[in-house]
């Protein structure tokens, strides 16, 4: 059937901007984890009970995950109210506000005065600019430029009409009227590079797959987002699934594939369910299937669920997994573009990469290349998490500095000093506070000993031990190594042995040299990308925090107070204001004292759980070497 874009668009606009009050709840996974379902049910109940004529709708994640559950209230033609950390109690007040047309100010994060539709450039203005703070001017949102996440938190992911109303599937229509070569040229011009890890130019990858001989080809969406600390792909799949379907269909047309496969990790059940519904709606409306837009091009998309193996994020392991085998990587060359799934030419891109395709096709490669740095174009979504004030997903132009991301958007690390930021997950590294003005792009991160990876940014304050962080990641890779090649399997096992020794205070200085040589050998000799980058967390912490390793070895002291055998906690009398918070949180009653007098800590009862350390706003709890 021929897709009917205009009637879908009309239907979508009616749903997005109805002529009655619309209350929207962010019901993606982070919203749900914060109680969005209870809020949603409470809203439905209140509306029903009071017989209100208003819509209660669902949307994805607006990115400000720590402020979830987010609830939006929109009166026809008026600015939209956005409430944060909504609890069922606040629901009543919101409903009363709706009835009285006098909305509460409690937990009001800001107001939305204008919606911009990125694809078409249209702006939906809502009158009345006066009064409350604009959400767009919130420091968390101000520097952001949303391309891949343009629809997340705006549309109902279960409604294809709302996607179309925001310019969805226009790019597909446009692409199918062009030649595949023209599309590849556009993607090449955009400078888009893989957002999943390696950063290989997407256009070049497509070109290889297109030129590979063969009648049957595949495109795959890598949705096996396994990097701990990164979840932008989940958010896109849960909030805007059609952009991935549209991107893949355009990619399929460009390289000559008729089958697309989304390999989605099992830990994301909501994403899988959202995708299934989206595929169904796309098929029903003629965006997937035979002879799409009368072009003669046919394309289908299926979902294969991952079963919990980090290594399957690696292209060749992912392919083995789809074929029903253990997820073991195989040597490249041959690359999947030559010999991939079932031996056929295969092109694999990750979720965020695919999500960038429709805007690039619609607005042109030059537009995309206008953002970013010389070799890293466009925007990148980062998961800004850890010891930071504002947690969430942020999308900024490439080249934005760490300082802008961590301090301007993230609001800094509070009373505790910023120590390092870990980027790129288990394949990445720790960047120290001294490099805070680093512009974030592929080259700069690599130069600093980390990588872009999929965009995880875990911020750590002075209470994070870098040796422990390295050990955390090596535990991870050791556990997630497929075990096929010797350096990765036995090498990570031995690295972990050494790190355990260091963290237990049982290592000697030659162990450090051995650790470094072993790390370099694994980097050089391992079979796949996972193995080759497994030593990065060790190498980068050795590069910037060697003195911390040395303190563990020479002084048997963990200066950050993490490695349990290697420190003690005391209260510095001169800094203690006698507020008593530390005593309240101590599970051992090891801290005693009187208000407004310095408190005391009983070493014999202390289990070094660090509850006091993280609670004291005056930094009166000190980490000291253990008595021996």
């Amino acid at each position: 059937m021929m897709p009917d874009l205009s009637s879908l668009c009309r239907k979508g606009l009616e749903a997005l901007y109805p002529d009655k009050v619309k209350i929207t709840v962010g019901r993606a996974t982070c919203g749900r984890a914060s109680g969005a379902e209870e809020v949603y049910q409470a809203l439905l109940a209140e509306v029903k009970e009071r017989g209100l004529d208003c819509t209660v709708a669902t949307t994805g994640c607006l990115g400000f995950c720590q402020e979830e559950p987010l609830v939006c209230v929109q009166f026809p033609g008026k600015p939209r109210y956005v409430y944060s950390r909504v609890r069922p109690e606040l629901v009543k007040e919101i409903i009363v506000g709706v009835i009285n047309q006098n909305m509460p100010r409690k937990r009001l994060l800001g107001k939305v005065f204008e919606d911009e539709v990125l694809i078409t450039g249209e702006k939906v203005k809502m009158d009345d600019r006066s009064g409350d703070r604009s959400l767009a001017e919130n420091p968390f949102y101000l520097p952001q430029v949303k391309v891949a996440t343009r629809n997340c938190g705006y549309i109902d992911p279960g409604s294809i009409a709302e996607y179309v109303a925001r310019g969805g599937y226009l790019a597909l229509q446009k692409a199918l009227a062009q030649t595949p070569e023209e599309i590849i040229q556009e993607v090449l011009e955009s400078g888009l590079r893989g957002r999943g890890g390696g950063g290989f130019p997407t256009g070049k990858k497509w070109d290889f797959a297109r030129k590979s001989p063969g009648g049957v080809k595949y495109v795959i969406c890598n949705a096996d987002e396994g990097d701990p600390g990164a979840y932008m792909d989940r958010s896109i799949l849960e909030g805007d699934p059609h952009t991935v379907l549209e991107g893949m269909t355009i990619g399929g047309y460009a390289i000559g594939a008729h089958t697309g496969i989304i390999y989605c990790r099992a830990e994301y059940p909501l994403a899988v369910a959202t995708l299934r519904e989206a595929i169904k709606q796309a098929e029903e409306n003629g965006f997937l299937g035979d002879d799409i837009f009368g072009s003669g091009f046919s394309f289908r998309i299926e979902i294969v669920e991952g079963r919990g193996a980090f290594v399957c994020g690696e292209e060749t392991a992912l392919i083995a997994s789809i074929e029903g085998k253990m997820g073991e990587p195989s040597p490249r060359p041959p690359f999947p573009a030559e010999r991939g799934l079932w031996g056929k030419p295969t092109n694999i891109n990750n979720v965020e990469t695919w999500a960038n395709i429709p805007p690039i096709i619609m607005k042109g490669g030059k537009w995309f290349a206008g953002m970013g740095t010389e070799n890293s174009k466009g925007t990148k979504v980062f998961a800004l998490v850890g010891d930071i004030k504002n947690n969430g997903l942020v999308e900024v132009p490439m080249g934005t500095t760490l300082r802008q991301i961590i301090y301007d958007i993230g609001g800094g690390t509070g009373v505790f000093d910023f120590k390092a930021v870990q980027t790129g997950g288990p394949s990445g590294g720790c960047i120290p506070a001294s490099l805070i003005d680093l512009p974030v792009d592929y080259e700069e991160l690599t130069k600093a000993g980390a990588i872009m990876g999929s965009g995880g940014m875990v911020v750590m304050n002075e209470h994070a031990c870098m040796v422990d962080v390295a050990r955390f990641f090596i535990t991870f890779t050791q556990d997630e190594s497929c075990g096929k090649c010797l350096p990765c399997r036995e090498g990570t096992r031995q690295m972990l042995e050494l790190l355990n020794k260091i963290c237990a205070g049982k290592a000697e200085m030659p162990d450090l040299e051995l650790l470094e040589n072993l790390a370099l050998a694994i980097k050089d000799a391992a079979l796949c990308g996972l193995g080759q980058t497994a030593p990065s967390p060790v190498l980068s912490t050795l590069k910037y925090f060697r003195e911390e390793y040395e303190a563990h070895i020479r002084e048997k002291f963990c200066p950050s107070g993490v490695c349990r055998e290697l420190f003690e906690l005391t209260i510095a009398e001169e800094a203690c204001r006698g507020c008593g918070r530390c005593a309240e949180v101590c599970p051992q009653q090891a801290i005693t004292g009187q208000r407004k007098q310095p408190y005391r800590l009983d070493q014999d009862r202390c289990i070094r759980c660090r509850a006091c350390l993280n609670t004291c706003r005056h930094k009166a709890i000190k980490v000291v070497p253990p008595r021996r």
Partner: protein
Amino acid sequence: MNVTEIEEIIARHQEVDGRVSGILGDIQKKYRYLPEEALRLVSKKLGIPLTQLYGVATFYAAFSLSPKGEHLISVCHGTACHIRGAVQLSEILEKKLQIKEGETTKDGKFTLEAVRCLGCCSLAPVISIDGKTFGRLKPEDIPGVIAGWKERDNCDA
């Protein structure tokens, strides 16, 4: 295990891509593990060596060869959760349930497992019970969460 049920699951999966994963996933869901006889049957019906299926069954974290508990508690050990106290959550859960991570309680009610990242890093540390995620947890919250889940279970029964 019931042969007809397994045959139905196999029949439901006619796709080429991801067929093995789909079939084993459904069996795991139904029985909360992969019974040996089921794998033997799948091997015979699909003409896939049993060694390959056994390899797959032991390789992926989502599959298990012994029954998991009625309720699955997953403690996220992603980076953000790690630096914000996931280890302490695990310790208290292990103490409370009297099992180690990866084990199932004697009454078969709960399985405790460590997972790599639930993708809720902004709410770290998080755990999930039967797919429902709980965020911003402190060790002292754990008893309440478990009790709440047990209560829900009684209501369902």
